[in-house]
């Protein structure tokens, strides 16, 4: 392998360094400042003209007040825990719904497969906001679901603005992210392996457990990470479908920022969220890199 610099990397690398990586340092710095200073230009700033003294003064001015507040406030701890719970449950439900779908797609004829694949991708291209919004009309008390339940003589459900609605919204919105990697893994599956298992007397369910499932694990991992990570920080779904009882951390950041205008505190909440997600994000990156090397 050549160990050269790539000129093509220069421009996008520079762009991402400025607009993606560097801003995280700004968030970190702001999260270490005082609320009292939370008006532009958000001191402490580094006074470069003072040289090393300026740097010292800068570090001395940093404090962890925001994080202390975060630790003391039950509300935020609860929001973290409930975000993780929502995301974990949502990911498992999406896997339960998505796996049979991906499995069924892989079983279809190639022509049908590409149409179905298109149908899975299409919702991804339509607005997230719109798709979540559509559920309001279904779940609200005088909505379609209750009209339907009324027809078949079942008590109406009060779902909108409950945690259940948030859960439905999460599964619904992130289902394509689960189905696509699963399908990619299942489609590549070597069918002669299943034939061999059948020839050796393995019943279908056993072949599934011992052949299909282990081989689809990379797809399962990719799908779960692709769902779980953004679900934890989700804002639109808890905001539109959830009530006051389903506070999620993404919504907490939004509210601190836009309603309370407490930028340092919002930054501290964001940093803690980021730290929580670093591990799954790194896992996802490694998975992605491995898949790309395999595709080579």
């Amino acid at each position, binding site marked *: 392998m050549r160990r050269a610099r790539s000129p093509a990397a220069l421009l996008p690398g520079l762009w991402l360094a400025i607009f993606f990586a560097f801003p995280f340092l700004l*968030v970190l710095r702001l999260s270490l400042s005082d609320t009292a200073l939370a008006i532009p230009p958000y001191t402490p700033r580094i006074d470069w003209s003072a040289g090393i003294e300026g740097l010292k003064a800068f570090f001395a001015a940093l404090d962890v007040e925001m994080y202390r507040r975060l630790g003391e406030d039950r509300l935020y701890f609860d929001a973290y825990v409930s975000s993780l719970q929502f995301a974990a449950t949502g990911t498992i439900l999406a896997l339960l719904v998505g796996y049979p779908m991906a499995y069924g797609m892989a*079983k279809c004829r190639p022509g049908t497969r590409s149409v179905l694949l298109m149908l899975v991708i299409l919702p991804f*291209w339509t607005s997230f*906001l719109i798709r979540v919004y559509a559920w309001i009309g279904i779940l609200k008390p005088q909505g379609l679901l209750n009209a339907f339940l009324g027809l078949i003589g079942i008590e109406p459900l009060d779902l909108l603005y409950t945690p259940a609605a948030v859960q439905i919204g999460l599964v619904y919105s992130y289902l394509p992210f689960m189905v696509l990697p699963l399908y990619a893994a299942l489609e590549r599956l070597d069918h002669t392996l299943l034939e061999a298992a059948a020839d050796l007397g393995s019943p279908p369910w056993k072949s599934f457990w011992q052949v299909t499932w282990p081989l689809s694990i990379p797809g399962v991992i990719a799908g779960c990470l692709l769902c779980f990570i953004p679900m934890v920080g989700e804002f639109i779904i808890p905001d539109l479908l959830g009530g006051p009882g389903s506070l999620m951390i993404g919504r907490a950041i939004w509210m601190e920022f836009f309603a309370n205008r407490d930028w340092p505190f919002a930054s501290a909440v964001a940093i803690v969220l980021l730290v929580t997600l670093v591990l799954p994000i790194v896992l996802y990156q490694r998975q992605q890199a491995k898949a790309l090397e395999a595709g080579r």
Partner: protein
Amino acid sequence: MNRGPSWFNLVSLTLGFAFLYLPIVLLVVWSFNASRLVTVWGGFSTKWYAALLQDQQLLDAAWVTLRIGLMSATAATVLGTLAAIALVRGGRFRGRTLFSGMVYAPLVMPEVIMGLSLLLLFVAMGFARGFWTVMLAHTTFTLSYVAVVVHSRLITFDRLLEEAAQDLGCTPTQSFLQVTLPNIFPAVLAGWTLAFTLSLDDLVIASFASGPGATTLPMRIYSQVRLGVTPEINAVCTILIAVVAVGIICWSLAMKWRVAGAARLAAA
């Protein structure tokens, strides 16, 4: 084997796709409903669409969104394609791990965090928030998607063709423009379309990056959606869905036509 789908496969497919599509179909149906209630069919009507044309704020927002989408998608396509080339063709250049990390991280990064960090950047740089900051923010988060789409195409492209062109006297730049680019062009175009629709749809990052005077369509829809389901919003949503659907159908027809053309060419 391929014994075809079993009844279990068919049931799970039917239920799965019904779940994915029912809300979208309902939204379209509601937008043509003369009644304001979602449970009562008051007859077919296009009056909600006519009402949209009177809503100047909405039209302004749509225009802003469209311009941001066109510009940011174009910038993201250039940057994303370059990033994909660097990842596929660059070998193990220094800083590759960091680079690929930066390219793929925005795909899973929660939007709230990206929005907040970009906003702080714009404040620190002293940019007035508005049209241009949203454009920059959208370019940043969509370029990753372009990179993924182009990457997957570039990796299957036979490098020997490029080398042959260079053996025949092309400079690397020429061989890229005349051999590689035409081959990966469908993916570049797909990346552009994806970046464009993502920009049209984005609410969270735009809300952070935007300032007074630059309200995008999703921001406008969001402020009304919070008040409940209204037929006017259903109509806007239906138009957006139709734009995307028509785009994708044209796209897949063009691909079919291209493939058929290539097959004819090969047969001749």
